[in-house]
């Protein structure tokens, strides 16, 4: 099977939350008590965040003020990075990227170190204290392998979510970008399998700013910078040591002369 992707066109989303409900139904996620979102820009967002029971939710974002106020609805979930930061960080290969697109979690390998939670640039994975497992959107691999769309995609009444090949999704996003629209996931973290198109900049929707490097490149650059700082520090310290040695020698010879 070819690598699958989902194109999320925020211009089409009406905020019906069918995807939220479909996800809970298919993945057997329970209801949880939610809290009022304290951010006035996001107060209609419910639930406010991911949890072991919430793989996806729709952010209800108020953009602009007064007359120009408009709503933007943005479904969020695991973006299923092409090169996932969580899978790179995972010491056990419990998290892996499959050829078909989903980043899947294999509980039997997991040690519960929590590094994936800190490593994900999008803040997605959660640890379920009850079942002692990492929980996040799965991209419904069991449905994909049967030729079905993920539960949320099938439930979407406006085709804001569409399943297609990764190539096609990237091409469509690039075309949208060329038309002056904003995209998310085309470049972020080396590209993801869920790609967004929007008329509103993603910074205004509270999406984290993530650089274009894939994790391996990010780590390598970090290591290079660590090494450069080490080399500069060593040279500076060596220089100071030689200087202080020379000075004390000079002082000694001066003392010897007098």
């Amino acid at each position, binding site marked *: 099977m070819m690598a699958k992707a989902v194109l999320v066109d925020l211009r089409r989303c009406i905020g019906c939350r069918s995807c939220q409900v479909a996800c809970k139904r298919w993945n057997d996620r329970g209801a949880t008590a939610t809290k009022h979102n304290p951010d006035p820009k996001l107060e209609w967002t419910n639930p406010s965040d*991911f949890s072991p029971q919430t793989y996806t939710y729709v952010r209800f974002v108020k953009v602009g003020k007064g007359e120009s106020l408009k709503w933007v609805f943005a479904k969020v979930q695991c973006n299923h990075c092409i090169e996932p*930061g969580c899978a*790179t*960080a*995972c*010491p*056990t*290969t*419990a998290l892996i990227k499959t050829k078909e697109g989903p980043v899947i979690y294999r509980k*039997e*390998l*997991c*040690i*519960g*170190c*929590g*590094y994936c*939670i*800190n*490593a*994900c*640039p*999008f*803040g*997605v*994975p*959660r*640890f379920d*204290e009850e079942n*002692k*497992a990492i929980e996040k959107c799965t991209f419904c691999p069991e449905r994909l392998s049967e030729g079905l769309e993920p539960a949320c995609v099938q439930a979407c009444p406006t085709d804001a979510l569409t399943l297609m090949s990764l190539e096609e999704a990237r091409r469509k996003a690039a075309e949208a970008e060329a038309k002056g629209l904003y995209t998310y996931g085309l470049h972020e*973290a080396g590209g993801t399998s869920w790609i967004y198109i929007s008329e509103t900049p993603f910074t205004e929707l509270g999406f984290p700013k*993530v650089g274009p490097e894939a*994790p*391996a490149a*990010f*780590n390598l650059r*970090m*290591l290079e*910078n*660590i090494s*450069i*700082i*080490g080399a500069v*520090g060593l040279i500076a*310290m060596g220089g100071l040591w030689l200087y202080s040695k020379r000075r004390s020698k000079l002082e000694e010879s001066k003392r010897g002369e007098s």
Partner: protein
Amino acid sequence: MSEPVWGILIATYLFLGGMAGGAYIIGAWSDLFGKGKYEVLARSGAYTSLISILAGLVFLILDLKRLTVAPFSVLNAYIHFPVSIMSVGTWIISAFTVVALLTTLLWLLNGNRILIKFLEILGMVLGFSTTAYTGILLSYARGRPFWGSPLLPWLFTVSGILTGLGLTVIGISIIAKIMPRLDRNFFEFFEQRSKVSQMFKSIEEYSIVPTFLEILVVILFIGTVWGTNGSFALVFGDLSAFFWIYLVIGLLVHLVLSLYNYIKSVEENTIIFGSLVGFALVLIGGFILRYVILIAGQL
């Protein structure tokens, strides 16, 4: 932003692991380049680094959230080498623990000195890697921008060496006074007060440079990640009290004590007492540093 997942157990592990690497480096260095003057320091470096890394591993393993359901899953941490930095670290720390154990055994049994020196060279590389790794682990975590500075591994390394120095000095006194039968060399050395105070005095002098360096590096580190939530919490916010305690009590007090010893000629017992107190504060500071950085990154 995800909720915090790493708390006081991981902070303790980062502190003990970094200190173990530092203590080993101090011990090995003083044996390899000390012209025989610092044998007690060399022995103390090996013993204390072993205890510190073993204790660190206990805290690390206790933090694993699947330990209760799958106790042997911990061995899976070796699998994803060398892609996962945590897997790389697992191998490094395991190798370091073995070398620290062998060095300790050889010292205790008065084994072959050439073999000890060979282990010391290997252990210094592994000890340095262990210490730096604790920082690299955090700097690679892309979901936590506050940790994303190439200076963080160096901050932890300098702190590891300074706390490691403190641990070896405190270790000498504890072994000599409380566990004299572990190694008679410590007891005999500690009986010669002038020798002890002389050594402590020169250690304090040597520690002036890393203390200055740590103050410099911590300021530069915060500069490189300024603007993140963590940086504000650290300097002005909820964690600022801890941070300032670290800076003032953990570093400046030690620096002042060391400089005072360096400039004035102080009485023998005062030197010993002063450096023990100063280094104990350095250890407390080293722990606070790991704790505040770990928590600030997850805010």
